[in-house]
């Protein structure tokens, strides 16, 4: 069995832990530089504030009813680590998928007590960290993701939904689920599926995998098997376009060497940059994570993640690498045997409607054009002559950028001077 644990309205939930007054209020968190709304509470969704909406476009009447906060990445990164720590007390197989989602493998666990176990886990996450989570369970990642969605929407599940791939209930649910709501089926693929007469998830599940492979790609073929309950998609195949990009890999052998980590993260950041440029996006924050092998009970376990706001939305690999290297300096601990490290690009926005913060220095058109040309050439060389034909060395020093974050709450968990206050 596979579980997908998803934190409910993660950024907003983090804020509410330290500011309980925000409970029940319409709360939005804005992207880096206070551009767009990137996280929303249920209440602000109900007021009609859309995901990605530029903050200044919100109707003033509605704006008055909302609390809009700047992103507090230090807090979200720390809370995310804590949630993962609790999850890994329940199964050693935790795969971080994004800052607020993890896939858990429950191989070898008894299926009929699993829902109960997950209720206990869910309540422990809530108690220990204050973050509400939902759990979806099934035999494939895609179905677990769908089950998770149901756990969130249908209150009868009480936060934990299990979907038997072969039940009538599952069939009924898939029959009314439009294909574009399936994990990994983007708008364009959905439109093309429509032309083949495939409109809902059940139709996709019963379609011929080979046929779909011819029309789309191997990923679409695997999706058919996933909907049938066979787990066959790897997380690296399934970075959600437009929302985040994740590149990570386990080391072939455990390492304590910072140089190994540095080189791996540099390669991951370059690769993430390529992916980002291919989807014509810009990243506003970057997460670096490292962890040890949780199976090695004989070695100290360590897991750390750090979210670094980027000075301005960017797709420039050199800037991504620079931030990743700065992040490594903060998360690296000596004498620890690392198993895996990775990069996640977060809060992506479209290249075409980049929001510049008022204080962020705009790059001159000439410089931007030059950067874009450089990155395009880089991608082309690597595409045509194989990965890593051209690699980026040490990036040059750049002046520090001022971030716009007027409405950022204190960094409650990472700064002594900013701890939450308890009135005595």
């Amino acid at each position, binding site marked *: 069995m596979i579980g997908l644990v998803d934190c409910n309205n993660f950024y907003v939930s983090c804020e509410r832990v330290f500011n*309980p007054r925000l409970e029940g209020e319409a709360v939005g968190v804005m992207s880096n530089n206070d551009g767009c709304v990137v996280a929303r509470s249920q209440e602000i969704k109900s007021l009609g504030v859309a995901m990605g909406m530029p903050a200044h476009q919100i109707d003033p009447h509605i704006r008055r009813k909302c609390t809009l906060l700047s992103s507090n990445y230090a807090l979200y990164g720390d809370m995310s680590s804590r949630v993962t720590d609790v999850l890994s007390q329940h199964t050693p197989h935790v795969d971080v998928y994004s800052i607020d989602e993890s896939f858990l493998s429950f191989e070898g666990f008894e299926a009929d007590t699993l829902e109960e176990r997950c209720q206990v886990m869910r309540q422990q996450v809530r108690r220990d960290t204050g973050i509400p989570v939902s759990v979806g369970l099934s035999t494939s990642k895609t179905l677990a993701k769908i089950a998770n969605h149901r756990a969130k929407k249908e209150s009868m599940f009480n936060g934990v939904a299990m979907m038997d791939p072969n039940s009538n209930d599952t069939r009924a649910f898939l029959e009314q689920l439009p294909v574009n709501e399936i994990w990994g089926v983007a708008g364009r693929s959905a439109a093309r599926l429509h032309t083949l007469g495939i409109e809902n998830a059940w139709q996709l599940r019963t379609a011929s995998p080979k046929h779909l492979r011819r029309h789309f790609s191997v990923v679409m073929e695997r999706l058919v098997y996933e909907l049938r309950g066979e787990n066959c998609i790897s997380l690296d195949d399934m970075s959600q376009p437009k929302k985040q990009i994740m590149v990570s890999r386990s080391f072939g052998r455990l390492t304590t060497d910072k140089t190994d980590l540095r080189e791996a993260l540099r390669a991951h950041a370059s690769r993430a940059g390529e992916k980002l440029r291919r989807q014509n996006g810009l990243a506003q924050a970057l997460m670096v994570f490292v962890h040890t092998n949780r199976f090695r009970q004989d070695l100290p376990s360590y897991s750390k993640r750090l979210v670094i706001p980027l000075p301005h939305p960017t797709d420039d690999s050199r800037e991504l690498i620079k931030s990743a290297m700065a992040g490594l300096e903060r998360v690296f601990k000596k004498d620890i045997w690392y198993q895996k490290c990775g990069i996640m690009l977060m809060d992506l926005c479209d290249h075409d409607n980049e929001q510049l913060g008022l204080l962020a220095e705009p790059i001159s058109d000439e410089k931007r054009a030059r950067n874009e040309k450089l990155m395009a050439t880089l991608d082309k060389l690597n595409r045509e002559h194989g990965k890593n034909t051209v690699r980026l060395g040490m990036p040059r020093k750049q002046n520090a950028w001022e971030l716009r974050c007027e409405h950022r709450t204190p960094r409650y968990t990472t700064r002594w001077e900013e701890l939450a206050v308890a009135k005595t």
Partner: protein
Amino acid sequence: MSMHFTILGRVDTMARPLRLPLAAGEVRAGFPSPADDYIEVELDLIAHLIKHPSATFFLRAKGTSMEDDGIKDNALLIVDRSLNPQPGHIVIMSVDGELTCKKLSIMGSRPYLVASNPEFKPIPLSGHDCHNWGVVTHSISSLAPGFAI
């Protein structure tokens, strides 16, 4: 001759086993190597004070109502969210949306939040929007000038 026991507290069954340093000498019943007494590791205050790292948060106390319980104004509080609050515990509760530090007490079979300074009236949990936040396990204040907490 009488014997004194000091109760240090209950064994925490939730805590994961701590990694203890391995003694270098061979263990022989009755004859431990005298060298073992000289093997020392640095004391890790954080590990000593914090049993559940992912559930532990630091908070800052503001106010004087808890001074007789050892919590000075501006003290650093170590708060463990994984503990179940019991009467007698110093707790953090969200009271009408505000994080509040008081002692949890039962008076006449009803739960109250009580300050150690009797000038402050006990707050009944019923009648307020109260949510448990965590149990205060330690309070740290600096005594020497120039040492910040």
